[in-house]
Each structure stands twice: as structure tokens, then as C-alpha cells.
């Protein structure tokens, strides 16, 4: 079963990776999307905009709670990914498969699950819990980043699937943590309101 899964994973990887190297514009776009600065910055700017968004104070407060959930979920997903990396050291595609010329720098950490994809899915899901519409929109950058990680040759598709489930778990944990510490987020928002920043 696992061998079959790995063979499917490898086949899908080779198919997506095979798309690279043909159209320079798309290669450039994928390199831009997958790098460590561009998309995280976009997500950060969206979260800033979310914090101030809406005319109505109640709707704004929901967005602010969504920002808390997204940030917490992002942090938790990072921790889960680190733990998974320690428990299961999966080599990167370029370490195992022949003739893989990646479009991105090589890493020496475990391939499974994809940290970047987990972070983006965690943010999207964290927002989705409070604001469905925006949460669906934020899935677009998450999917783009996930696809680009495979396209440039640094992750298998299964790493992305793992990242998705990691994000799901971390979002549930983040949501529960926010419920448990409930007076705290409300107090922070109230404090920010007092200094006219929320």
C-alpha cells in the first residue's frame, strides 16, 4: 500500500516537475511564488488589511479574531512540521531522483511535510473559521505556493498533502486554544481599541 502511494506520489511529482523548464515566464513566476519572501509578505499585508477592515465594529472584531487564529495556527503548524521532520526524515526529490535540476535552493531538512505549504494552509484555515469568504480566497495563495513547491522540484505532492493535514490539525488546536484562553484575546482587542488600533 505504502509502496503504491509512493509510486503514485513520484509519478505525480515527475508530471508536475516536468512542466518546468519550458516557459521561462512561468518558471520565473513559480520561482517568485515559492521564494521565502514574496508570498509570506503578501499574506502579512492581507492580515494587516484584515485587522482594520470593515465599517462595522463587530465585523472588524471577527476579522481581528481571525487574525489571531491565523497567526496562532501558523505558529502551531511550524511546531508540528518540526516534530514531523524529526520523526520522519524523507529525502528531498533532488536527493533521490536522477536529473532533477531544481529552480530553487536546496535544503538539508526533511521533505515531509512542506513547511511553507503548511503555513499558508494554516493561515487560510485560521481565517476560514471566522470569515468563510476570505478564508476561501486565502486558499488560492496556499494552493499556488503548494503547486510551486512541487513545480520547482523541492517537494513531493505527498508533502503538500501532509502539510494540508498538518494545517488542519494546527487550526483546530489554535481554535481550541483561543477558546480556552478566551478572556485574553478579548482583552487584547479591547486594549488595542483603547489606543485606537483596533
Amino acid at each position: 500500500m505504502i509502496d503504491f502511494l509512493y509510486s503514485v506520489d513520484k509519478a505525480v511529482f515527475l508530471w508536475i516537475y516536468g512542466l518546468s523548464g519550458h516557459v521561462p515566464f512561468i518558471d520565473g513566476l513559480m520561482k517568485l511564488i515559492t521564494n521565502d519572501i514574496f508570498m509570506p509578505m503578501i499574506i502579512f499585508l492581507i492580515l494587516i488589511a484584515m485587522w482594520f477592515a470593515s465599517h462595522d465594529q463587530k465585523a472588524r472584531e471577527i476579522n481581528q479574531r481571525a487574525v489571531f487564529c491565523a497567526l496562532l495556527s501558523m505558529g502551531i503548524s511550524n511546531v508540528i512540521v518540526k516534530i514531523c521532520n524529526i520523526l520522519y526524515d524523507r529525502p528531498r526529490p533532488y536527493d533521490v531522483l536522477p536529473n532533477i535540476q531544481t529552480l530553487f535552493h536546496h535544503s538539508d531538512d526533511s521533505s515531509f511535510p512542506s513547511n511553507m505549504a503548511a503555513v499558508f494552509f494554516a493561515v487560510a484555515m485560521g481565517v476560514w473559521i471566522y470569515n468563510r469568504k476570505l478564508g476561501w480566497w486565502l486558499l488560492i495563495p496556499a494552493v499556488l505556493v503548494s503547486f510551486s513547491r512541487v513545480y520547482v522540484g523541492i517537494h513531493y505532492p505527498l508533502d503538500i498533502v501532509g502539510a494540508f493535514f498538518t494545517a488542519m490539525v494546527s487550526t483546530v488546536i489554535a481554535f481550541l486554544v483561543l477558546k480556552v484562553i478566551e478572556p485574553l484575546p478579548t482583552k487584547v482587542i479591547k486594549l488595542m481599541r483603547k489606543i485606537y488600533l483596533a
Partner: protein
Amino acid sequence: MDIFRFGAWYWTGYVGTWSFIAVYCAYVFFSIIGVMQFVATKWNLKGISFFPNKKWGYAFSVIAITCPATWFFTSYDCTGLTFDAPVQLFWIAICTIFAFLCTFTIAHIIHRDMRLPKKKNDVPGGIDILKETTYWRAISLLSKRKPQ
């Protein structure tokens, strides 16, 4: 732990030059200013807006977000190692604080004649106050009035 871990080269990322950090910080700073202007324009927060006209506000935010990004990503090849996450977060935090302070100050200078409603009950709470006055004028209220 490497004794040089928190030395200058750590804070300049893997690229290792302060010019890289300067361009990166400029990119982050202007992007945040652009987003703040978008927010101010979209939600009528006149107290932090630089422009009286909505079209100018949107145009400025688009330019402030796209131009520094284009400049940064054409200046540096970011397909190599750039930052560790904590270093990136550190610079983003610094730039965010400066971008907020800068936005509040510029808008305060532009709208220096904006006044607060005279009736205490007319003063809105939270960021809604920025529809009526500038941030620094609102902050000056903290010592005078209790926010609602």
C-alpha cells in the same frame, strides 16, 4: 550554538549585506504604507489617509505596493537562501512599527486642521475615531477623556 549566530551576518540574512537589508526594509516599509492607505481609503479612515480623493488613495496604494516589490525582486535573486524566519520577522516588525508611525505622522501633518467632535458622546471608540480625526490627536485624548 555558534558564537557568531547573533552577529551582524545573522541579521543580514544569508545574503549577508546591509544593502540587501536596506532594500528589503524599504520594500516592506512602503508595502505597509500602501496597505494602510488602501485601508484608509476603502474604510474612510480620513485621519490616516494621505489623499482627499479616493482614486488617488487607491492609485498610491497600488504604486506603493507594486513598485518596491518590483525593485526588490529585480535587484536580488531570491531563489537562494535569504533569511531565517526569526530574522525576517524581526525586520518585518521593525518596518511595520516605522510604517505605522510614519503613516500617522504624515496624515497628522496633512490633516492638522481636523478637530474632534465637541460633544463627548460623538467621539467614536477604536479605530472608528480615525474617521473623525488623526491618530496623534486621538491619542492625546487618552489623558483627557475615557474612550467609549
